């Protein structure tokens, strides 16, 4: 999957070979763009396999590639079984309700939620929702803030030290504070979302704000003087200036920041979920660790690889959006 997404260029030579153009040359191109990454992955798998069989832990041997394949299959089967159970549950409930309504027409049927254990796939879903909420919230704060301080050299000088101090703070340091604050402020009998979700999301937000703030501010501050003169000659108002000149002109830098932020958000999320016990991938890893069965290490390894692939995909998606909205086509985006 990584090959296809990172380098679609290999499709072109395939098409050309199919048409019978420069077969030898294009075959070489394919070998380069597909063969080399495959070879790299193969070498990695071999080294991993060899190393794994030599590492023994209290929970058994370190999982090799084969264990990971096995565990991912079993996680998938568990997911399917759980889904079937849920479906059966709802079916039973519907039938019961229908019966009751038939007996007593005044009865208003109630649907109770299925409360099974979240599957691995559900946990991936929760993680994605949490990370995206935190990231979107951070962007909604960071971009306007970055613009405002980028437009004024004085504000920038004033806030820069604060930004530089908070930027390197680890999520583990924020988490206890956030947990306490959320517990104190987020009180409701019927909460819309779980406290652990809010805690994880806010921790993610606090950690991934900064790259977007800094890059947006730098992008805004480096708008060419000529464009600012144009805006002044046209006497654009502050808001129009931001909308017509500042935003478009700093879009490339804003996206550089957003991509960095999303990368950080995803990394922070796993740690936050572990500690906040938000039902996502981080909690999955933690639970498996606490569980300590012979399958646990293999399952954690599946999570590690899933985390890597999702992180990579998130970055590619951002890159695709960046390519679409960026006017600076000459800039090499990778």
């Amino acid at each position, binding site marked *: 999957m990584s090959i296809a997404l990172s380098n679609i260029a290999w499709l072109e030579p395939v098409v050309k070979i199919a048409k019978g153009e420069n077969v030898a040359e294009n075959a070489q191109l394919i070998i380069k763009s597909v063969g080399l990454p495959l070879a790299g992955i193969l070498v990695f798998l071999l080294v991993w396999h060899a190393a794994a069989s030599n590492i023994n832990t209290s929970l058994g041997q370190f999982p090799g590639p084969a264990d990971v394949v096995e565990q991912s299959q079993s996680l998938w089967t568990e997911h399917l079984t759980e889904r079937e159970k849920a479906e059966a549950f709802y079916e039973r409930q519907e039938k019961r309700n229908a019966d009751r309504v038939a007996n007593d027409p005044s009865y208003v049927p109630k649907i109770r939620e299925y409360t099974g254990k979240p599957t691995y796939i559900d946990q991936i879903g929760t993680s994605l929702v949490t990370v995206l909420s935190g990231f979107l919230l951070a962007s909604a704060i960071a971009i306007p803030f970055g613009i405002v301080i980028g437009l004024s050299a004085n504000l920038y000088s004033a806030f820069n030290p604060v930004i530089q101090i908070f930027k390197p703070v680890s999520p583990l340091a924020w988490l206890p504070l956030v947990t306490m604050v959320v517990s104190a402020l987020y009180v409701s009998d019927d909460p819309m979302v779980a406290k652990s979700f809010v805690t994880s999301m806010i921790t993610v937000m606090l950690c991934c704000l900064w790259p977007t703030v800094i890059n947006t501010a730098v992008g805004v501050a480096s708008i060419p003087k000529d464009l600012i003169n*144009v805006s002044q*000659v*046209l006497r654009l108002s502050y808001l129009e200036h931001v909308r*017509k000149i500042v935003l478009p002109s700093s879009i490339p830098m804003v996206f550089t920041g957003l991509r960095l932020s999303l990368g950080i958000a995803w990394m922070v999320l796993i740690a936050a979920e572990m500690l906040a016990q938000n039902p996502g991938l981080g909690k999955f890893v933690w639970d498996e660790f606490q569980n300590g069965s012979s399958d646990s290490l293999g399952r954690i390894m599946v999570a590690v690889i899933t985390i890597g692939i999702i992180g990579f995909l998130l970055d590619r998606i951002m890159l695709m959006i960046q390519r679409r909205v960026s006017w600076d086509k000459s800039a090499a985006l990778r």
Partner: protein
Amino acid sequence: MNPLLELTDVGIEFPTPNGPFCALQNVNLKIKKGEFISLIGHSGCGKSTVLNIVAGLYQATQGGVVLGGKEVNEPGPERAVVFQNHSLLPWLTAYENVELAVKRVFKGKKSKAEMKEWIEHNLELVHMSHALHKRPDEISGGMKQRVGIARALSMEPQVLLMDEPFGALDALTRAHLQDSLMEIQKELNNTVIMITHDVDEAVLLSDRIVMMTNGPSATIGEILDVELERPRNRIQLADDPTYNKYRQQVLSFLYEKQRKPDVEAPAKKAATSESKTEKVA
């Protein structure tokens, strides 16, 4: 007739780390409606500073500028500027770049259809109708400058300010643009102040050439009235004695009266000053 634009005792001091730097002093100039003025002088003497003061982008520290009876103290579309390096918004097409200005200036005065027509008309004037929907990075330097001129013209400015508009272009493209500008000027009869470092360009285009002394505290040295019939043709003028007399007068001001100090002392001539002096040619 009253002058449209009047600079009275204009001077400016820039604060620098080594104390205030007096760039201009006692600049006095009256410009009539429809006049085409060139500002010429050695690089760094303060031509752009004069233009920026008229544009309202800089504030004079002495004296002031009056346009049509009103003092100038901030930028505005009635004093449109054509900048040296086009300064088009790179994310907008030629049409959209002009549209931005037209929408700003004629909001509520022109209907949507009238605006569209006006934008296309101005791009037509500069012969850019074939590339309305191209972005700046898809057109040549000369074309970008044409769009920049169209944008300025579309604001129907009282004065058109141009800071070395053709300075970054090759000789052939520059000649084309000069011809276009003369054509436009014949039709619209705008009031124009143009900075140039090209003596031929100054004589060919201007009604008056304002020659500036070297800075610091630069001021106007001489003003030359160019009384050549219009329309002017560069080929016929090439061996016109009056044309050559004007040319010679400007050259003598620049290279005899206002000889740059670093030209007189070749020993001190560094690579940077070399490129500076070559600009005036």
